[in-house]
């Protein structure tokens, strides 16, 4: 039916209807070859689900050494690191601040990158977490929040060797009763590392030049759905022709965006995109990676990692002073496509970090801050 279908595409673990005990004890033969991975893992979804559970929920933080490369670049919208000790440190700090954090694996959308490159995994997680300790956001609040994270990883021979991490921190902060802009100011007080600033500047330059990401792999991805993903980027961000949204989404499609923004139906979805782009009208977005997998026997799931760069135009008066500066997003979107159109969308980026970057740029004059 579909060309560009990797081996065993439709046999790899689907998490939707499976409970955790079943996911943690997979039965049956190995589905994917997984060269260099531990024998216990039957496919890349199994690997991602179980190492996440082992590290975060079973609190085997030391397993980071087993499942992360000694050198593993990790990009977030607020930081860059590439050493395992930072991964361990960040895991411990988060668990100390949110000790009951659950990581519910909602979906893993993957791609076989080839024998010499491993696998790409885009893991969407819902976390429920109670803030009982000081965190990167400030003092203890005692409140419980629900947060969506998408972690994109390159997995090679049993280790994560590259990661892009997107978390909806603005929705978390709202649930904790914290002010997003105040928190962004606080985060901006800490200077950013030179590696982060260099990476961000390079990405902004690349996006403004409308260049694709240098990280590309030759293995095929379902062409029809890749085309839909690219149409989504073009229509919703670059062309800004929102009248055409009805060609992409079902009439009762539901989308979830950062900060508690949710919309159902075409008018609301149009409104969400317009509100977003009003904050950065000349934004350009690049689709930096696309993966496609089947969803049950009903449709397909698409994972898109994308970046946005443009000129910031403040909608909140408290951010007015930053208008005219470069606005940059590292984001990920999961789309569920049924009968050729999007029925569900989850888009994740860290709004708080995006604002913190604006503030830091202004305060520290970090590089070329204007478009």
């Amino acid at each position, binding site marked *: 039916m579909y060309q560009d279908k990797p081996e065993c595409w439709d046999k790899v673990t689907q998490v939707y209807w499976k409970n955790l005990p079943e996911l943690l004890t997979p039965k049956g033969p190995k589905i994917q070859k997984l060269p260099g991975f531990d024998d216990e893992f039957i496919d890349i979804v199994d690997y991602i689900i179980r190492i996440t559970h082992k590290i975060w929920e079973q609190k085997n933080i030391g397993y980071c050494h087993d499942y992360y490369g000694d050198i593993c670049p990790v990009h977030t919208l607020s930081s860059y690191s590439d050493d395992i000790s930072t991964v361990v440190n960040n895991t411990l700090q988060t668990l100390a601040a949110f000790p009951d954090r659950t990581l519910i694996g909602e979906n893993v959308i993957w791609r076989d990158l080839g024998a010499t490159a491993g696998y790409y995994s885009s893991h969407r997680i819902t976390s429920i977490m109670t803030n009982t300790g000081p965190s990167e956001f400030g003092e203890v609040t005692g409140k419980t929040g629900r947060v969506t994270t998408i972690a994109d990883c390159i997995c090679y021979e049993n280790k994560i060797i590259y990661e892009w991490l997107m978390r909806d921190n603005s929705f978390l902060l709202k649930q904790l009763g914290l002010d997003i802009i105040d928190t962004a100011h606080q985060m901006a007080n800490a200077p950013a590392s030179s590696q982060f600033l260099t990476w961000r500047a390079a990405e902004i330059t690349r996006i403004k030049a409308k260049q694709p990401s240098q990280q590309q792999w030759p293995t095929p991805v379902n062409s029809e759905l890749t085309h839909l993903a690219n149409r989504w980027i073009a229509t919703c961000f670059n062309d800004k022709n929102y009248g055409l949204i009805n060609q992409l989404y079902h009439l009762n499609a539901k989308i979830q965006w950062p900060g*508690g923004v949710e919309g159902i139906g075409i008018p609301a979805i149009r409104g969400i995109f317009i509100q977003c782009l009003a904050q950065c009208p000349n934004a350009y977005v690049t689709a930096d990676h696309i993966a496609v997998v089947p969803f049950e026997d009903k449709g397909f799931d698409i994972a898109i990692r994308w970046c946005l760069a443009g000129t910031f135009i403040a909608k909140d008066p408290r951010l007015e002073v930053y208008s005219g500066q470069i606005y940059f997003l590292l984001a990920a979107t999961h789309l569920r496509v049924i009968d050729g159109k999007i029925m569900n969308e989850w888009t994740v980026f860290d709004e708080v970090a995006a604002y913190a970057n604006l503030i830091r740029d202004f305060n520290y004059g970090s590089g070329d801050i204007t478009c």
Partner: protein
Amino acid sequence: MLTTLTKAFIQGDWAELQSKLLHSTSWTQHHATMYGTDQLRRIPIAWLKLAGKCSIEHSLVINQGQQQVIQFDLTPQLPQSSQPTQSSQANHQSIPYIFWLETNGKVIKSVDAILDTRQLALATNHTPAELAQNLPQPDPLVLPAYDQQDHLQGDLATPENIGGLTGDLAHLLNTWWRIWSIGQLSEITAIYAENATISLPAADSKDSRLSLFHYISNQYSALTRIFCQIEKLISDTNQVAIKWHLDADEQGSGIRVPFITILTIEDGKIIADNTCCDIIAHGKRFTNSKLFTD
């Protein structure tokens, strides 16, 4: 899942319900979405705390594919000393509690539930403020600002295009939808049977076609920029369930009211309409709204 929910919400059998939940099951109720054992266990416990032991006056189940809608009409079996003191007829009415499940028959993936909290308060002698304290904090969701007009683009969900309906049923439900979505009140007498029983939010008794007429016209006069959106629709034999919401501006502030409507159809007309929303949770989320204030 009727037995499972009955055991949980009538008998307090949490283990039975838990056996049907996934670690990834989400439960949306009272304008809050909950996950995980700790949060989900509190839902039947909170119900039992407020309503106590109840009897099921009536239940119905509508199935289509992996969607199942279960409605209970529950009557608290309060001790004599705790009987509601008001003589209002409303206090003796049962409490509608509707569950919209996504289920494969073995486990439940998601629940969207609407409890008639106003009726719960009346039936258990709680004030709305007391009941509101027992509800979870609503999620700080942002209502998107959007153009509610279609501009001849044909982008609006209808029962026909969402439910994949055809023929007379499609026509009937599209007509029903126009009553709410555009205030086409003249259609009420066309599609409702003369003796149809109609339950509406904040109503003190089972209503008639005339009451529906006045109810919707009152809503339209209180609100601007009204937009109604169908989220899900299932049909089974002669019953249809619709999950939908109404967005509007009330005195310049945006509000959203989620509804579940269950229609029973006979001889081409609606003979029963049960439209339910969570009034006290609405007041907790939209503190300035007077939409359901008596």
